[in-house]
């Protein structure tokens, strides 16, 4: 956990990619879940944020 936070603070690719991946995965779950439409409504913005973040952070140093 400490390594993960250090990675985020030092702008390391691994930690930021993991964060972006979690955002995308959560967004897709929100998009396709059958429980509440409120989650569905905010799903796209979460996926978009994750995808854009992924594109940017994949250029960070290892």
């Amino acid at each position: 956990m400490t390594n993960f936070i250090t990675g985020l603070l030092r702008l390391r690719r691994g930690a930021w990619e993991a964060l972006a991946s979690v955002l995308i995965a959560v967004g897709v779950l929100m998009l396709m879940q059958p429980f509440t439409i409120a989650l569905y409504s905010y799903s796209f913005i979460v996926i978009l944020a994750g995808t854009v973040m992924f594109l940017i952070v994949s250029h960070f140093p290892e």
Partner: protein
Amino acid sequence: MTTSPIQKVAQSTPDGVAKKIRGLSDRTIAWIFVAPTIFLLLAVNIFPLIWTIRLSFTNFRVNRPNKDVEWVGLRNYERILNDPDIWETMQATAHFLLWTITLQVLIGFLLAFLINKKFRGNDLWTTIIVFPMMLSPAVVGNFWTFLYQPQIGLFNYVIAFFTGVDPASFSMIGDVHLAPWAIIIADTWMWTPFVMLICLAGLRSIPDSIYEAAECDRASKWRQFWTITIPMALPFLMLAVLFRGIENFKMFDLVVQLTGGGPGNTTTLTSIDLKREAFEKWRTGYSSAYAVILFVTVFGLASIYVKALNKVKER
């Protein structure tokens, strides 16, 4: 002295052209060769994408080209993301994706594992198993529509034989609860061979020496399966999931042929709904926003999946 074809071409090149080519750097010549491909990619992939994104912020309708196009901002996105019908379509797609991928990977891997064993008639069985994949989705759709007929369909008779229910008492493509399973079964029948071929490539790439070493260490078959076969075939399994996931997310032809999205909207997948919005209701701006949402979702998922695949390969 004989001259080579290259020398002949060089001699026949007009002096003016020859001088110009001689003056070009390697980098420029490389660009001249690559430019047509880049231009084609921009024209076929990038331009339509940018145009779709632009249209998604307008109320453009392609069947009313003379009507003024209004800039509506994020209204199309807002309407899609608050529409309960589209939400249901997303759930139907998720159900279809989850079950088709699970069944295809499990059955495909099992078939590959069996085919990988040396036995008599191995090649013949491989050809028979691969056969459904070679058919057109329209043919498979028609074929399964006949199989699912309550009165004459073979599928209903097989179920009746095993369960004892009346074959005419249920309709796979007419029942709200059974129709989603009807498309899952047909898609699994058609595309499991594809997953099997990918898994077979993975299994055949594992050297026999590793199994021989495990035998020397007295590892059981069960242990060999979990510690050698599965880890070494994992990148191929993941590749199969990626291919089938992307393909099934845009599944259209087979489902249209089988159920047409019905009964009700139970088998209306996102691609079918998108086609209806774009080419039946002619809401081009709205359907462009819908397409952008689906594109970003698939792109995001594919990005994390490719990253995971690379990590597994590096191990």
